[in-house]
């Protein structure tokens, strides 16, 4: 099938998409957007998190055909004019990255959290990021980063 969608404000058109492949596969393997990471492929780890028409989803669980005509924002689309977003800056500042694999998903999920709740409590942060697994740094620095981002974006 032919798939047309908008990613980070840019219209894409790609042919020969297999109907059963995931939006994540389309992003990475067809559009060359490698920011969204492929790990569990079952919605458990959150590393493929993107915004689909403004809603936080695991792109591995969206069928390519379901993304037809939709607007997607990936981690690549969060910054402006070559500068990182406040959330990305905060992750960097706080050292909330180690191997970096879970980071794009955590950053996208944090953006989504702060859009809906600009001043989240720690419990709300933990709840909002419960679907994003980190297997090396641990979550303390991530919490620091989210608190810092909430402070700067308030």
């Amino acid at each position: 099938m032919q798939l047309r969608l908008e990613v980070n404000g840019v219209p894409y058109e790609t042919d020969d998409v297999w109907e059963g492949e995931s939006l994540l596969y389309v992003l990475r393997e067809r559009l060359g957007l490698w920011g969204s990471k492929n790990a569990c492929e079952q919605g458990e780890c959150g590393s493929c998190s993107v915004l689909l028409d403004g809603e936080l989803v695991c792109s591995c669980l969206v069928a390519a055909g379901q993304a037809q005509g939709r607007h997607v924002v990936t981690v690549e689309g969060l910054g402006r004019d070559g500068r990182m977003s406040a959330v990305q800056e905060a992750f960097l500042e706080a050292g909330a990255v180690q191997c970096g694999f879970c980071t794009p998903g955590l950053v996208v999920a944090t953006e989504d959290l702060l859009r809906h709740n600009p001043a989240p409590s720690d419990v709300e942060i933990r709840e909002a990021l419960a679907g994003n697994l980190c297997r090396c740094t641990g979550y303390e620095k991530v919490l620091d980063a989210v608190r810092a981002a909430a402070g700067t974006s308030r």
Partner: protein
Amino acid sequence: MDFHSPRTWADALALKAEHPEAVPIAGGTDVMVELNFNRHRPPALIDISAVPELAQWDRADGHLRVGAGVSYTRLVRELGPRLPGLAMAARTVGSPQIRNRGTVGGNLGSASPAGDAHPPLLAGRASVELASVRGTRLVPVEEFFTGPKRSVLAADELISAFVVRPAPGPEQFCKVGTRNAMVIAVASFAISLDPEHGRVGTGIGSAAPTPRRAAGAEELLEAELSAAGMWERPRPLPDGLLHRFAELVTSAASPIDDVRGSAAYRRHALAIMARRALSWAWADLMRNGNAPCN
């Protein structure tokens, strides 16, 4: 593989009649896992996520009719106060990402014994609305499940909605898993109290081949509370009644040993959850009187 994208409910039903082997996909939280892992490759998918009728809910004849495509996130946000037990269960589903996509319709369609929505739907005596080009039928949730991942859904049918009364009184839901988020239930339990009619509803999850009610426990509680006049004037529940209720809930289950837990652990957990859920619901009743939720 064919991919169908109906834009109306009539088109979706016509497609399902024409392609009975096609798998409906909404949030994709089950269907895409099967596809990603190559476990199941259906000849066709029918994407029902863009059918507007499925994303709506409304009130009719004192009941709520909730479209099968309403996400868990919307359920919590829009229907939380009217369906508190189901909303509690919905909050335990996966993560925000999963709750944004997953639907009660999909939970019912997958018919897993561990589905989080099922115990509160059983406790609330909900019905599932099934539709096909042949017509529409309403099946009590209790009769919907026929076995692990099996239901009465016919090959040409789609789940259109579930129908349930707004909670007539306090409701509670308990779930045991390996951690707080992102877990499939090892065992779960839901209770709904209807003080006006002196009725009790229960639902057991993940502890039998299908989700099921604990009818004996419901009857015991209804009889004891009526006899003691406690619906009209709620007083603290006697310990003995709590224990007998929990025993009857446990005996209604028929759990198995599996990777998530042993049958013995599931029975133990169910007894505790039954006691706690009833205590919490009863405490709500004593606190708020018997005002119904709406």
